[in-house]
């Protein structure tokens, strides 16, 4: 990654391929997710919580795979999903310190064959850049709301490690480590005062979304088993 502050003049000639943004997620088993996306994401992925490796702080993520660097939705050319998280769509743009707009010059999206540019011929922001800026704005406000939601979950003792013991069709045992989900037992036992607070802050809706999304783990297991079957048949055929 090579982040530089975006300059309309200096980077005016850059060409972007937005279709390659999804490729940046090809080997990501976790993609950060903000609360405003929970409902849409819940139709596709499990929503999980994990700690940042440098700070230990919790963020929320969509889960794409059952192992490190595994994205089971990646087909080789795109993400086969109903909803692409904003953190993927915003590629190759980032918000740096002091809210400066930055671009990752190492991103595969920065490509001379690209169809999009950041400025129009008259020097004004392109429609594409405006759209990206709006995604980034949504991400920034979403991030604050997400932090507040997670802080509330932690203070109410509503997060717990996810204990998943999966045995795949080929017999491989799978254990997911470092992932956290809602502590449903604590949620059920929550005193009324806290429950009311969750409802008033709108956090209850988010909790429902996370709960609904938890079943999507079976989608991941199915995809993983399909891959195993595919690989096995490939090996069998080539051996034959």
């Amino acid at each position: 990654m090579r982040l530089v502050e975006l300059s309309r003049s200096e980077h005016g000639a850059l060409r972007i391929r937005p279709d390659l943004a999804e490729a940046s997620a090809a080997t990501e088993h976790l993609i950060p997710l903000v609360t405003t996306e929970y409902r849409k994401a819940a139709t596709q992925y499990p929503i999980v919580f994990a700690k940042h490796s440098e700070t230990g702080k919790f963020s929320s993520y969509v889960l794409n795979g059952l192992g490190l660097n595994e994205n089971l939705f990646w087909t080789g050319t795109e993400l086969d999903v109903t909803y692409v998280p904003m953190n993927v769509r915003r590629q190759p743009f980032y918000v740096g310190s002091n809210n400066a707009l930055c671009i990752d010059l190492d991103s595969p999206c920065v490509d001379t064959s690209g169809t999009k540019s950041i400025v129009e011929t008259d020097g004004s922001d392109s429609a594409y850049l405006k759209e990206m800026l709006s995604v980034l704005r949504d991400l920034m406000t979403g991030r604050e709301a997400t932090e507040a939601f997670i802080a509330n979950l932690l203070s109410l003792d509503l997060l717990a490690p996810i204990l998943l013991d999966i045995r795949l069709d080929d017999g491989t045992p799978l254990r997911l480590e470092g992932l956290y989900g809602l502590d449903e037992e604590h949620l059920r036992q929550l005193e009324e005062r806290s429950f009311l607070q969750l409802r008033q802050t709108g956090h209850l809706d988010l909790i429902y979304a996370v709960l609904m999304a938890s079943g999507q783990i079976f989608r991941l297991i199915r995809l993983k088993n399909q891959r195993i079957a595919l690989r096995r048949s490939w090996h069998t055929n080539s051996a034959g």
Partner: protein
Amino acid sequence: MGTPVRSICIVGGGTAGWLTAGIIAARHASDSGRGLQITLIESETIGIIGVGEGTWPTMRSTLKKMGVSETDFFRECNASFKQGAKFSGWVTGAASDFYYHPLMLPEGFPSLDLAPFWTKYSAEHANAPSFSDAVCFQEAVCESGLAPKLITSAEYAGVANYAYHLDAGRFAAFIREHCVKNLGVRHVVDDVTAVIQSDTGDIDYVETKKSGRLSGDLFIDASGFRSLLLGQTLGVPFVKRDDVLFIDRALAVQVPYEDEQSAIVPHTLSVAQKHGWIWDIGLQSRRGVGYVYSSNHVSADTALEELRAYVGSRHRDLQPRQLEIVAGHRQTFWKGNCVAVGLSGGFLEPLEASALVLIEVSADMISSMMPATRETMDIVAKRFNANTHYRWERIIDFLKLHYILSQRTDSKFWIDNRDPVSIPDSLKEQMELWRHRAPGDQDFMSTNEMFPAASYQYVLFGMGFRMNVDDLPLQRGMENAQRAFSQNATLKSKWTKVLPKNRDLINKIKTHGLQKI
């Protein structure tokens, strides 16, 4: 029904008093007024000794049970991680002479005992690794200056087992705040002027300068070396153990770091000297260094020179504080309605950081066996005394073990320490057995053991002891043993790559905090 025990009066506001208050209050106090009422009297004029800057891993569960956040503990107690002790110079005094007593069991222990396999291997190979290095990955972690966990590890959870180094003064204040604010302990700042007994001999109340009479159904003497209640008032004599452990002086000094980012050593350094040994403990902002020695073997001036040589000429201006200490304990620890916790019960040299853990264990025992009535208190006292005596004997044995295998001949201190007259019979018996087999759990049958068999292995083999393994049928277990040795090598290379530097993690904890889960 008898006379119910409703209130506890703790005399002394040092680490012993506040830890005991916290441990008991976390279990027994309640807002509804039903539980026990706990009052602690802290002197206005008498400072705390503040020994014991090293804990055992038990402190993690003690703090957790008390409801303390580990993040707050790091932020407020100048605390750092401790992953055991490195003993330098104890065997021969040569520069390369060191071994570790880590806080983790040998790989596979106790279902698998690597000791005989290592003994055989090291006899046949000149460049064999040390025992502690061969069976436990923690030594490598310590030698690389690494922390025992990650910023993503939950509070009180670790990759490697760990304890703490802490600033005893700040720690007492930290626990005090928690006790008063969150656990409902009543804090009285005043000086005790008299201790008044009733006709039965029990302590009735203590008279204070400003707060009048303070009574209690149970009194806890945490008054330090003075042993105001148990020793001075109830006349329980002190039993010296200086015939076994010769150390009777301490010179303590606080040594600043080179700069704010200097490495913090993640273990206690215990460096043997000519007439004793030096502890060297890395806190966040400074090191705590002290020379404990035997005044029968060296003059105070010479000892001071030895300490100065250790800390280096840069710190020539530091003025060490001198303490007189006597190894030993009260003849009994709980008499009538009074029980001693901490220095009022006794003292031993800090070789294996037994001071704080003894406070925890005693307070835990008082808390879990809390007598419901005065009538049943004597039964509890009898058990408490038997347990505590047993613990002291085991600690004394284990401390003595560090001395009896030394090969040092550079002073009478080391030679006298090997005199059979100074070695307890219980330790002599163990040593007889261990000539033919390694220490195992079968040698430590009590549920009140302080040190596990593995600790004895680390010290024994670290000190150069070798048992006779010629007649042991080792072939049968060889495969398992080899697997365990290579598992240890795997863990060593894995964790030394992943774990952060000790100071880096502590800085991160102070900035970001650890998660509770």
